């Protein structure tokens, strides 16, 4: 369904930033360049949930930004159902739903206005919005406050509206970048249920998170990025088997420890 192959991406390092970082030198720093990603690959099939893991600054957000067309890679490919995201970004955008760490909603618009604005930008018909969008609203339990301004909603309410905004055009791939950060248990539960539902409808879900319990609950596959490189990409069972740990937290730590040596040899 979605295949990310050998993505590499570097950014220029500003002189000032370089000076500041000189004391804690990152191995990805190469002269005036910072190699944010180095041959990162992962895959997620139809109706699958991929848990994208990695410590802060590993390169998860850069990878997600590339696959959602916001950034262009230096090399590599992202293919969604045969469509090359880098070569046909406009077409690919129709097939992707993206939810970033921030809710990305307009505070002075109502929840409905926000959702409908993004729906129209994706070319969703008025009839669909009038007749079929209600199902999404009900599943996310946002019907009661659809006509309230987003700035007056709680963080949990906003995040649910944001998810509705991300799936209103029925994307084939849904990318969720730490969607439960800062949410209470109830709101987290609703989002978890919604991911299950959308997976059951055949959508591929890429789920970036630091919560391994959420990965255990939802993910079919796991991909780990560490210092810009892929450390692991495979099924949950394979992950546990390779790291010789049933506990995902310990398995994750084992993989990272093993990855340190590999990263050092790369640069």
């Amino acid at each position: 369904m979605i295949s990310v192959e050998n993505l590499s991406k570097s950014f220029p390092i500003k002189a000032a930033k370089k000076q500041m970082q000189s004391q804690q030198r990152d191995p990805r720093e190469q002269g005036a360049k910072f190699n944010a990603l180095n041959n990162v690959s992962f895959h997620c099939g139809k109706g699958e949930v991929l848990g994208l893991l990695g410590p802060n600054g590993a390169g998860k957000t850069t990878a997600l930004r590339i696959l959602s067309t916001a950034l262009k890679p230096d090399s590599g490919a992202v293919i969604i159902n045969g469509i090359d995201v880098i070569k046909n970004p406009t077409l690919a955008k129709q097939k992707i739903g993206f939810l970033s760490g921030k809710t990305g909603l307009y505070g002075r618009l109502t929840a409905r206005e926000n959702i409908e604005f993004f729906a129209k930008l994706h070319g969703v018909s008025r009839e669909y919005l009038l007749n079929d969008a209600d199902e999404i609203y009900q599943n996310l339990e946002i019907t009661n406050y659809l006509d309230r301004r987003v700035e007056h909603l709680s963080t949990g309410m906003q995040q649910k509206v944001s998810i509705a905004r991300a799936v209103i055009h029925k994307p084939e791939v849904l990318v969720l970048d730490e969607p439960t950060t800062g949410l209470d248990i109830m709101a987290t539960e609703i989002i978890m249920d919604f991911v299950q539902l959308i997976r059951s409808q055949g959508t591929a879900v890429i789920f970036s998170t630091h919560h391994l319990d959420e990965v255990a609950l939802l993910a079919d596959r796991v991909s780990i990025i560490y210092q810009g490189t892929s450390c692991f990409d495979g099924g949950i069972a394979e992950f546990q088997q390779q790291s010789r740990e049933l506990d995902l937290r310990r398995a994750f730590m084992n993989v990272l420890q093993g990855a340190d040596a590999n990263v050092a040899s790369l640069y």
Partner: protein
Amino acid sequence: MWLVFIKELIELLRDKKTLFFIIALPMVIFPVVFGIMALFGSNAALQEHDKVIRYVLKNGDVAPEFATKLFYHNDFKEVIIEFSGDNSIESAIKNDEVDLVIELDEDFKNQFENDKISDWKIYFNGSNIFGGTKRKVETLLQEYVDELQQQTFARLGLAAEQFEVFKEPIKIEEIDTADDRESFGEQLGGFIPYILIPLCLTGAMYPAIDLGAGEKERGTIETLLLTPISRLSLVLGKFLCITTTAMMTALITIFSMVLWSFIIGQLFDVSAVSEILKAVGWSDYGLIVLLLLPISAIFASTLLAISIYASSYKEAQNYMGPLSMFVIFPVLVAMMPGISLNFNWSLVPIANVALAIKELLKGTIDYTFLIPIFASTGVFALISLLFCVYWFNKESVLFR
């Protein structure tokens, strides 16, 4: 593009800060501020007019007629101060003990009788903008000088008619060919763009920050970039919205100025104001609005480019501060005496519009200059807009 435009406009019009800059500032705040300034100004002028000047006359006994005239004048009141040592005339005026000191020449009588010039000195604080003290004492002195001249002429055996001819050998009749509108345009025509053009900038500034750096700060720009809309459409939608708010500010300001001028004209029976405003004509008002369109477009595209480069609200505000200076300088050109609209000036963005507005208000514009004005401002706006689109396509700018 229109979807983005409508969304941005709805969002902006729901924002209290935007409403304040677009509506409240030109409709209420400016007239109130100008009204208060006028009130304070007229009160100060009235106080200066009614003020009784405390004076000291030194050696007054050499000109008793003048001393008497001064003593019995309603605008003057004699005070007694001894000037010696530390208490000089200057320090007494500085310490507000006295407003005016007139020092007569001790030998005045003798000098006058022998047809010699006598030196009198008047001390006063000339920093007052209305200059009431100087004006009043000069009037009184002139009356006295006239009397002295008459006495001299009589002594020389000349008739009163001859004295009049000596005083005013030529009577000049001034015939001003400029009508009220032209005079008004010359005096205030440069001031109107000085208000209108910076207001367009103010009207564009806040929305530009909100639609660029604001979106970055809130994380909404990333969501917007992930939709299938092209970057060009995105920029155009935002640009049109900012241009619209800038134009709305200008339109409301023009409406407010005309409205308040009519109200003042009616309330204080200053029919000249209403007459001049009527004389300008709706087509010229329309042209003023039209001239502000490319100016607003320049501001919108430049400010949006700056705003999208900035990574936060605060950073955008810091970058935009100096821009006001670049706008004020060309606008000041229109207020300078002797500078009028010609082909060269019609090619200089902002200055050309300021000069054209002045000429429109005067009723002396050469309409052919409108072509280079629209062409040069249009080209400048287009370049800024293309630069804006270029920056919207740069990752290093969008994800700074």
